């Protein structure tokens, strides 16, 4: 495959950002992921799809360091990644959202998103404790960055609201905002549209496309809704029972017989 190319809608897709090589993940005797390889290229929207229990979320957890595969290598930005704790992965520039929303419920929307900027804040604890000049400047700079994201995702009206009081759809958006605040090199979205109605889904799709377009953020997402996936993504990995059964552009995947069988079921003789 060539090093970089221009998509039909005019975005530049760069070289390989993340390369998963022969990943195998076992829980006890159960193999959740069986020897899967795929890559994510810079600037693209990469979808991972598959029926329930296919191992999609496990794969995302491997990328973000929550699970450690028994076999295989994770290459990020041209270097093999050692076994890493999730917070180190986050510090490397990989942000994520969760399937069941993991927000800080007791904190305001603003504070939640500010937490996303923690990896960008470098002043030490003593400087912070005495509220030294450097700490103040840092707070102001990061606050500005957060305000831009709040504008971008159109959540100005709820900035001060405690997250616990928000409806589901907005929570999802705040979680996206928090992940975005980290200015990640790779953004992982675990079912960003799960449980949403059609209108909310459209909003979220638009935001995902805008994020990719405006900031050039590489996005890997898991989604159930085939229609959404086909519209959003540049390339798709299809998983079933922990195996990879398809990989390519939405059109290629759609024509793949194994994929059709996995989704529609196949008659057993």
């Amino acid at each position, binding site marked *: 495959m060539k090093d970089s190319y221009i998509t039909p809608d005019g975005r530049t897709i760069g070289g390989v950002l993340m390369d998963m090589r022969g990943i195998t993940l076992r829980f006890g005797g159960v193999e959740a992921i069986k020897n899967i390889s795929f890559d994510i290229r810079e600037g693209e929207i990469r979808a991972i799809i598959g029926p329930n229990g296919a191992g999609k979320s496990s794969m995302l957890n491997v990328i973000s360091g929550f699970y450690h595969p028994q076999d295989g290598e994770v290459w990020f930005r041209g270097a093999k990644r050692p076994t890493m704790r999730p917070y180190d992965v986050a510090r490397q520039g990989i942000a994520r959202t969760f399937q069941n929303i993991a927000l800080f419920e007791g904190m305001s929307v603003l*504070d939640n998103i500010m937490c996303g900027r923690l990896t960008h804040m470098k002043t030490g604890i003593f400087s912070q404790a005495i509220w030294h000049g450097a*700490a103040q400047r840092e707070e102001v700079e990061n606050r500005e960055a957060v305000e831009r994201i709040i504008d971008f995702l159109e959540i100005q009206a709820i900035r001060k609201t405690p997250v616990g009081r928000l409806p589901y759809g907005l929570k999802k958006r705040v979680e996206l905002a928090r992940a975005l605040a980290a200015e990640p090199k790779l953004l992982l979205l675990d079912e960003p549209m799960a449980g949403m109605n059609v209108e909310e889904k459209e909003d979220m799709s638009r935001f995902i496309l805008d994020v990719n377009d405006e900031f050039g953020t590489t996005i890997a997402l898991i989604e159930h809704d085939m229609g959404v996936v086909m519209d959003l993504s540049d390339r798709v990995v299809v998983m079933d029972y922990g195996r990879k059964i398809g990989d390519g552009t939405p059109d290629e995947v759609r024509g793949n017989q194994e994929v059709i069988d996995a989704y529609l079921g196949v008659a057993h003789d």
Partner: protein
Amino acid sequence: MSADFLYGIEVILNGLMAGVLYALVALGFVLIFKASGIFNYAQGVMALFAALTLVGIMEGQVPFSHMINAIFGTEIHHFGWHVPALLAIFLTLCVMVAFAWAVQKFVFRHLVGQEPIILFMATIGLAYFLEGMGDLMWGSDIKTLKVGLPQGGSRWIEDMTSGLGGDDFYGFFIDKLDMVATVVAAILVMSLIAFAQYSKQGRAMRAVADDHQAALSVGISLNFIWVLVWSLAGLVALVAGVMWGAKSGVQFSLSLIALKALPVLMLGGFTSIPGAIVGGLIIGVGEKLFEYTIGGMIGGATENWFAYVLALIFLVFRPQGLFGEKIIERV
């Protein structure tokens, strides 16, 4: 105003000040419980240990001197110097931070994801370990703590108020140490709240208290935060230890004040910093006032049990405490 009424006010004032100290110990509990879900039984012993260490450092005592003497047949007890109070407090704080780090590194890191009861048992072990350690390092004799805090009743307040209640009233008796303790505790609490609310690490602390997974995903190291929280609890323990130590001498019964923090927590809620403070004040005032008004009729010494009975009543009618999060179990 009648003298009885004025004495009542004096009782309330003294109760408030005693309550501040209860609140301090309870605060240490709340800090750790919020951030890690660990109910730290060792909080009271931490206060004792901090006070012992402070006295030891100030007096230039040789740590483990009894053990060293027993093994090597030497006769050393003191380095022969005295460390100024402020420097000694700073050094003690360093010891408490080192302790926080060690607790995290050698105990709780290995217990991540265990049941709360297991974590609780670990802190009981920790309490006995720390008590033994304090004994071994600094000896078990009662020590006096002299960090230059004023002692005794305030003549000034007594003189100022003596005219209020006629011939039977001699003015409010208020311990200077209690006043200092109140001011110090207030400053400590306000700075802790400001730190948690506005600093980067404070935000991370609140994040960890709220959701571990989410905290990890934004790049927060849980271990760092837990060390930080235990260090802050160590700081609170040090302040509590200094105040109690200055009041009644540094002795091993100091660790029992931790038990008084239990009813405070039941009143205030285990997860609320304001709750710990208000709870402490209510218990402090409540037990003094009860002793003053009803205590005499039923033989006195009600301060020993009043707090627990009050907590029991709260457990029945409002189990989450005044400020605690309501426990809703969805079925």
